[in-house]
């Protein structure tokens, strides 16, 4: 292995620019002559818009144009599409009401886009927006997920605010098992609504060149090619070949920057209208109201368990809030990324899920780190924990008893997926050992002497990453293919440019992908440059989400490298006057088998571009492109254990220890992988303890619309984490990798809530804020005193 090859904790090459203030984020970019956009947003949750008067705003200083939904309608601007059509229980497609970038007749959530002001300065655009007169004919807000179906209808197309009523699994088998089981454990759970809050607010610049009739769009996007596809094919009706989307450095995404939003659409469209570049940068308050939110499920779950603790059946009833409109992938999140994961790590023979997705007058809900999988894991790991308590079994042993065993792989679950490989006991054993599970009772007793309630909580999660194969997702309703592409290009002097369709917004691809190519081609790491985030430079791409970059994007790079080597062998064979079959490639050298005659990769690359002495019938150049379409999802899995202490006098939960043991398959850069685990856990802890998106039930106003009201995890809310790994290599991709980006966010919430409920002896919903925990403790004290 070269020093900086696969498995080495190489320090990141992107860090220098970030650490010296030389990163280049969208808001850092300014185009000559640019104007600024400000969006007038709806101040009410649900209303008919009866009049929009823009004349005064148009006359305000610095204002170049004011646009409304009618202007866009006149230009035949389309609706922002949802890229996944879910077919419901009755064979009907989901309800997909139009989602226009600027509203045409109705506003449907606080923050909905009413008008766009374009002016010489941002301040002028903002001031002028105050002069727009809008008459709202208010309608009742619909906020509550559970009650949405009986609320005022939001879209003409969706009676009872129902988007779809969908099911998966064998209902009869589940009901039969439930009726005969010795025990049925039931829980009602809320998976709290979250606001992703990448630290870089969304931003966009639309730039139109009338000379070439082409557009350049700068956008804070996790997948620039997909944004281009949606803008061109669905909304603005432009040829893709005339639109270049650049997603430069992007300051975190966590899902929220996957989608095509109204703002970049409007900036692109308006750039041609006004003939100058148009820039928009979200204020944080706008991010709160208009970024796609995450989670927001209300679920009833029942687990049937026999006398010995074997799981017999699982039944899940979920209402999922999709918000006011369907965001780009919102429908696949509570269905194919959720119910398909309900087996978890367990060999439960029968599973059935019914999911109703409902419209509400709130911001659209879509994928947020984990996307469906955290919701699935939360309910499984909560109900399993409660089952252990009710049956009086050790929660670790109950899990072990029901795990899918290593010799059962490939394992077909009752909910469509086939797990290729795993060893769940190995992760459990390692985690139990790391946390000293046996020593917990003594630690609990010691905590008691200090007046603290100590609890321990496990979470054995599984995730499906890589999101693929295209044919399968297509059959399930996806509107796109889910391959990835890579181009690997040698330059004549031996350096390599790698163009990847994956996008890095914190993941460190520029480093880890270079490690991969360095190892595959046997060339120095320093000679490999990774190019991403520009549709003008990269052949094609599907972007980064669902922990897919290495498993899918990395596999595409491997395939392109294989093609390079294949061609290189022909060139080397010619130079070495040997037959191609006799030339082998290893560690950057093409060697005639059994001899010491060889040519280096660099010599071969040079020959490819200076082909004076060259094999007949071989094209010059060394530049290969590959598309990789996975054969299956990948299935990272692991066990997290949280140990906490609750102070019953304050309700404050202190995390005293956290052990994470994950199986991500083969690990390319362990330093980066551990960082992903830390960040994921922090977001999971945020969901479980602190974060909650709240809309006022009456007015539909977003109550938690700033960092004063929405509690982000700060450094002093979190502990240091202890991370361990086990490895079973993925069987169906050339790297044996699985993906690591979402694991922490999936595993953490149930681990923490299991620990807290263990400590306080009562059920509690997320977020388990100090106030809620304190109330539970006080009630218990009061009870005990009676």
């Amino acid at each position, binding site marked *: 292995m070269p020093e900086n090859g696969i498995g080495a904790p190489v*320090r*990141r090459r*992107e*860090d*220098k*620019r*970030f*650490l*010296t*203030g*030389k*990163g*280049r*984020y969208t*808001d*850092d970019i300014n185009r000559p002559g640019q104007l600024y956009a400000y969006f007038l947003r709806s101040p009410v949750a649900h209303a008919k818009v009866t009049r929009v008067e823009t004349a005064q705003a148009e006359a305000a200083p610095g204002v170049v144009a004011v646009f409304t939904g009618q202007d866009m309608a006149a230009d035949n601007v389309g609706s922002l599409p949802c890229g996944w059509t879910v077919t419901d229980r009755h064979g009907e497609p989901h309800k997909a009401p139009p989602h226009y970038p600027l509203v045409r007749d109705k506003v449907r959530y606080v923050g909905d886009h009413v008008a766009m002001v374009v002016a010489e300065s941002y301040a002028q655009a903002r001031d002028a927006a105050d002069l727009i007169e809008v008459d709202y004919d208010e309608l009742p807000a619909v906020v509550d997920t559970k009650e949405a179906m009986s609320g005022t209808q939001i879209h003409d197309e969706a009676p009872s605010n129902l988007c779809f009523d969908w099911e998966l699994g064998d209902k009869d088998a589940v009901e039969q098992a439930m009726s005969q089981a010795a025990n049925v454990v039931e829980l009602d759970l809320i998976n709290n609504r979250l606001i992703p*809050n*990448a*630290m*870089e*607010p969304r931003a966009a610049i639309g730039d139109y060149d009338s000379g070439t009739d082409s557009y350049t769009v700068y956008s804070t996007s996790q997948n620039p090619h997909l944004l281009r596809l949606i803008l061109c094919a669905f909304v603005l009706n432009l040829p893709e070949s005339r639109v270049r989307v650049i997603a430069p*450095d*992007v*300051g*975190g995404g*966590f899902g929220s920057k996957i989608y095509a939003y109204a703002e970049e659409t409007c900036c692109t469209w308006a750039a041609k209208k006004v003939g100058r570049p148009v820039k928009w940068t979200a*204020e*944080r*308050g706008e991010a709160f109201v208009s970024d796609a939110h995450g989670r927001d499920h209300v679920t009833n779950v029942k687990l049937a368990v026999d006398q010995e603790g074997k799981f017999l059946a699982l039944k899940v009833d979920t209402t999922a809030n999709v918000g006011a409109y369907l965001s780009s992938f919102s429908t696949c999140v509570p269905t194919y990324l959720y119910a398909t994961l309900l087996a978890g790590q367990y060999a439960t023979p029968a599973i059935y899920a019914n999911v109703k997705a409902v419209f509400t007058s709130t911001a659209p809900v879509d994928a947020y780190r984990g996307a469906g999988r955290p919701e699935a894991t939360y309910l499984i790991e909560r109900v399993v924990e409660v089952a252990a308590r009710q049956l009086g079994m050790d929660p670790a042993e109950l899990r072990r008893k029901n795990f899918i065993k290593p010799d059962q792989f490939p394992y077909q679950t009752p909910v469509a997926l086939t797990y290729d490989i795993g060893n769940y006991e190995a992760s459990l054993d390692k985690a139990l050992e790391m946390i000293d599970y046996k020593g917990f009772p003594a630690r609990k007793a010691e905590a008691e002497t200090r007046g603290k309630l100590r609890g321990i909580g496990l979470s054995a999660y599984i995730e499906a990453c890589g999101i693929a194969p295209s044919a399968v997702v297509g059959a399930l309703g996806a509107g796109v293919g889910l391959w990835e592409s890579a181009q690997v290009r040698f330059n004549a002097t031996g350096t390599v440019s790698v163009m990847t369709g994956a996008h890095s*917004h*914190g*993941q*460190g691809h520029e480093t880890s992908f270079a490690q991969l190519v360095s190892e595959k081609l046997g060339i120095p790491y320093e000679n490999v440059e990774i190019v991403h985030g520009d549709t003008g430079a990269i052949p094609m791409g599907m972007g980064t989400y669902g922990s897919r970059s290495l498993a899918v994007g990395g596999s595409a790079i491997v395939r392109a490298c294989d093609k390079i080597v294949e061609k290189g062998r022909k060139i080397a064979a010619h130079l070495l006057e040997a037959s191609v079959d006799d030339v082998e490639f290893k560690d950057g050298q093409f060697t005639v088998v059994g001899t010491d005659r060889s040519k280096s990769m660099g010599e071969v690359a040079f020959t490819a571009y200076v082909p004076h002495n060259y094999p007949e019938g071989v094209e010059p150049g060394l530049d290969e492109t590959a598309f990789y379409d996975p054969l299956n999802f990948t299935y990272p899995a692991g066990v997290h254990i949280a140990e906490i202490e609750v102070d019953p006098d304050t309700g404050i939960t202190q995390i005293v220890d956290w052990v994470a043991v994950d199986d991500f398959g083969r690990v390319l850069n362990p*330093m*980066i992988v*551990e*960082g992903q685990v*830390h*960040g*994921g*856990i*922090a*977001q999971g802890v945020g969901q479980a303890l602190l974060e909650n998106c709240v809309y006022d039930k009456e007015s539909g106003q977003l109550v938690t619309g*700033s*960092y*004063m009201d929405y509690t*982000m*995890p*700060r*450094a*002093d809310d*979190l502990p*240091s*984490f202890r991370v361990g790994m086990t490895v079973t290599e993925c069987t169906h991709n050339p790297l044996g990798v699985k993906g690591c980006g979402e694991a*922490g966010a999936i595993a953490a919430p149930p681990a923490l809530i299991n620990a807290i409920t263990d400590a306080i002896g009562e059920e509690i919903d997320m977020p388990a804020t100090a106030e809620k925990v304190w109330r539970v403790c006080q009630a218990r004290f009061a009870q005990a005193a009676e």
Partner: protein
Amino acid sequence: MPSLSMTINGKQVTKDVDPNTLLVQFLRENLSLTGTHVGCDTSQCGACVVHVNGKSVKSCTMLAVQAEGSDVTTIEGLAQGDELHPMQAAFREHHGLQCGFCTPGMVMSAVDLLQNNPDPSETEIREWLEGNICRCTGYHNIVKAIQAAASEMRR
């Protein structure tokens, strides 16, 4: 428009600015020093932290004119030429950043911490960072980096 003078990263700067310009706008828009970021509108995220007369300040919370005559250091002024400041080097070594957006503010804030407290405990570091939000790292490696920089700088 009033004319405004200050020293930024060791260089004397004089510019005409609107009196309601925030220091962070002055840096980003008037001087193209885009290393200082804006992550919120309520003075809470700390992405905008710079040093004014040696002390960490949220530059979104201060008017540019309030910095008249001051000595301002931004993330662009921390390294000595090609040599990273020990805090920058420690963030790189210990993977204290992912997307890099919070990083300039984190680093500037952490440098100020060590000026006040050259040997902070983990708890003191975590408490000091209360005004800096990072969504990517879970803070684990940021804390580690600051500890490492502290021991490096004490040598």
